[in-house]
């Protein structure tokens, strides 16, 4: 008898009909193998985070498609308009052409795709688990709060890296590919590590900060609304204020903070109409956002562990 042909298998119909109320088993044996090291359980959580995001097109695939379109447009611009002067080049005294400014200019567009992922996944992670009672599911097992936080953060980073690291790296690769000669290629090689750095920074920010917002509210819709308001409304406000007052204030706008670090790495100056954000302020803003967000998630998850299991009995 095969596994599928368990108790209740009908040869006539070829189906397994479970007799109502009957107890049936596929054959039980005590598990005697080794168990996964508890310190590595975060990997299971990270993998599940990626798998569940990939399951529905609107969760991740839509944003991934957007990133692919951004990559294609940026690549096309590089290939077909390589001689054109960049508008950003004006800020550098017309020293730069479009082919050299496409990569740093595209980062803010990848950030927008990253923001879409934060809306469809990141900003609801903790709130969703609070709402569905999933913390009981996690903490009745040998999962510790830091496994959960690291797992969710790693899962989000893996997803966002596909957009914020892979996309810019493809563009960087294209730029190297259209080099005039080997000397120029060698000169341009540092853009690879610069792209990796900026992609990594943006990935961490766009993974951690929405996660922090998802821990602020016990309801996923409210958490989502709060994050969207912070990113879009508060971000726009501080950026505009930064233009007329201190540029450091504008560093609280996440995409502009990322852009500031990008420009610094690629030795670019801001346009005169942009807020002039100091690099130190941008770094401090991103680091502060990430630290506060991770601390918030850790606190809420720790609290959920202590109150969640057995709470309703």
């Amino acid at each position, binding site marked *: 008898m095969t596994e599928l042909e368990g108790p209740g298998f009908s040869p006539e119909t070829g189906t397994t009909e479970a007799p109502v109320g009957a107890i049936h088993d596929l054959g039980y044996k005590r598990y005697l193998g080794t168990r996964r090291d508890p310190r590595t359980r975060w990997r299971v959580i990270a993998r599940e985070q990626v798998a*569940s995001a990939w399951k529905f097109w609107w969760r991740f695939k839509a944003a991934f498609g957007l990133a692919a379109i951004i990559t294609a447009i940026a690549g096309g611009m590089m290939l077909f308009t390589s001689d054109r002067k960049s508008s950003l080049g004006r800020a550098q005294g017309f020293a730069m052409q479009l082919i050299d400014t496409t990569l740093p200019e595209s980062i803010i567009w990848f950030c927008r795709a990253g923001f879409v992922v934060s809306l469809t996944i990141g900003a609801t992670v903790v709130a969703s688990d609070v709402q569905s009672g999933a913390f009981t*599911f996690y903490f009745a097992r040998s999962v510790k709060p830091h496994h959960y936080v690291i797992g969710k953060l790693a899962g989000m980073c893996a997803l966002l890296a596909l957009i914020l690291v892979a996309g810019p790296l493809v563009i960087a690769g294209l730029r190297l590919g259209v080099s005039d000669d080997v000397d120029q290629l060698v000169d341009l090689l540092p853009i690879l590590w610069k792209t990796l750095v900026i992609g990594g920074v943006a990935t961490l920010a766009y993974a951690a900060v929405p996660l922090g917002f998802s821990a602020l509210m016990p309801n996923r819709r409210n958490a989502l609304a709060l994050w969207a308001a912070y990113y879009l409304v508060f971000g726009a406000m501080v950026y505009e204020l930064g233009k007329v007052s201190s540029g450091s204030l504008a560093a609280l706008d996440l995409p502009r903070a990322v852009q500031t670090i990008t420009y610094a790495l690629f030795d670019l100056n801001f346009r005169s109409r942009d807020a002039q954000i100091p690099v130190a302020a941008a770094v401090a803003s991103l680091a502060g956002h990430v630290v506060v967000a991770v601390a918030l998630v850790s606190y809420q998850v720790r609290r959920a562990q202590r109150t969640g299991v*057995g709470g*309703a009995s």
Partner: protein
Amino acid sequence: MTAPLIELGKLTKRYGSITALADVDATIDGNIIGLLGPNGAGKSTLLKCLLGLIPYEGDARVLGLHAATSGSEIRDRVGYMPEQESFLTGMSAVELCTYAGELSGLPRSEAMQRAHAALYYAGLEEKRYQPIDSYSTGMKQRVKLAQALVHDPEILFLDEPTNGLDPRSRDEMLELIADLPARRNCAIVLSTHLLPDVERVCDHAVIMHHGRVRFAGSIDELRGARGGDRELVVEVKAHAQQLADVLATAGASCEVTSAVTLEVDLPESATSELVFRNAREAGIQVRGLGVRRETVEAAFLRVIGDS
């Protein structure tokens, strides 16, 4: 010699000025143990202590392991079926159970295989690929049982497993619970307010009240603890009232519960021989005689009331 399932020594847990568990001493063993107590008795706090989730004073051991220091190891060897819903949005039953198995340390292939087996055992084989969100209450209870079983636990903590179930589903769930110790070689701690459930499936009980264990022992001890062998239930062919009158003159107190049955409290130092002798003399045929035991509900109320 194997360690008892659960050992508690001077276990105390305080939340600020509130003492949730006060110097609890108990050794808990058995196949299916009913954990009983009114709301606020300390059951949930005890459960959290046993799973190593909260700090406490005193000693709490599960399967011989200290809950304070070996919480992770205990949780790998214990299954927990919560009262409230605790599912992950958008998952099917088989995905949830596989994930549960992996989180409990099983390799992925093993977790997947056992997830199918656990769901099959819980009676969800045909529905296991459907999203849990679309399940009925009864099916959700079955998923909760399956996810608690998937990693092959040695003890299962079941928190109100029959809550919200219709009579038929409740019967099926109790049947599964009663079957588990023999089929899966695991002990069960059943936390419930439904005392008929305990009466039906449990062989041991722990009764908690005001943060203390008021009783820990077998169900037989609990139900028979009141009057020993002097409290009888007698079944006769006919004339129960006549036998009651005769026994009353012999010093017993009787209550006729139907035309053919009566409950008898024998006087001190008397035995069941008194019933047989008086029945014979009155020409009444005795068809059955047994020691009268309390229902679990009555015993529970007595234990709680004693405190």
